[in-house]
């Protein structure tokens, strides 16, 4: 369980909004990268199988 840093103050509504926007941006990029990797691994598998 993560501990709360006593030095950190709770976020203001603006900071929280920016934080959530950043979270959303990262999630979308991660999803895009995962999709790209799925396609890449599929193609690698096809090339490897046809090669052997």
């Amino acid at each position, binding site marked *: 369980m993560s501990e*709360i*840093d006593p030095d*950190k103050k*709770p*976020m203001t509504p603006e900071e*929280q909004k920016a934080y959530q926007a950043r979270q959303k941006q*990262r999630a979308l990029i991660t999803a895009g990268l995962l999709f790209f990797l799925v396609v*890449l691994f599929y*193609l690698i598998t096809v090339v490897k199988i046809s090669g052997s």
Partner: protein
Amino acid sequence: MIKPTEIIETEMTIVTTSSYKLASAKDLFALTKPRVMSLVIFTAICGLLAAPGSIHPVLGFTAILAISLGAGASAALNQWYERDIDAVMKRTANRPLPAGRMDSETALHFGIGLAVFSVVLMGLAVNWLSASILAFSIFFYAVVYTIWLKRSTPQNIVIGGAAGAFPPVIGWAAVTGDISLMPVLLFSVIFFWTPPHFWALALFVNSDYSKAGVPMMPVVAGRQSTRRQIAAYSVILAICAIAPFALDMTGAIYGTVAIVLSVIFAFLSFRVGLSKTEEPSKMKAEKHLFSFSIFYLFALFGALVADRVILA
């Protein structure tokens, strides 16, 4: 009695305060030093295209991707370890770690994760020889150069330059599955190109390496000694660059480009060697050499590929 909405609000506060520094995708990308990566990608593609034999385009793309990710991992680990000196120097103070936009743990985990992924991807998709060299190059840059050499010797850039010299060798090994004399010569070209290129820049740019306690050659040995070493390295570089043609491993296109550009490189280096200017703004010879050194490497490797594609 606690209302359900209060529990949700409390939990949200715990989440947000305990993970305040959520690195943005832009900062994670910046951690990979994308500008440095462009040279790595270029030389790796050249090594791959110049190698005898062929590779399926999907596997060739995967090899370049793995090399790029490996270079990004090295850069991330480098920035993680150097966050203390990066904070001291003006040029690097705005990087994600010293600027406080990212936790050091995030950078470390990102670097290690990217390194492991790049090596496994290369091994499974291409071959394990190129994966092994990739793993060694990441280790060499992150540990031998960053942790060991950079802060302990003015020869840091000379030996550390080896890390940047691996990409064409990895590209070559991805196609052939072995290492011959030609990729070793390509390695040598980048290895001996690095000191004149970097020291020419270090001579005319007022960096604060000394403030950060990094023993760079112009600071430790002085400008004149650095200039003499630049001239000496240009001769070794010319020998390595012309050797593939002299040993009949390349054709006339590469041979002509290598001879002409190496002579110009040596001329510019000797001009630096003879210079006695102390004022950075008046160091024209050093600035010319630095600009030409970038063109030299791109043109040389471009000629290698042109030679292989056209004459083959």
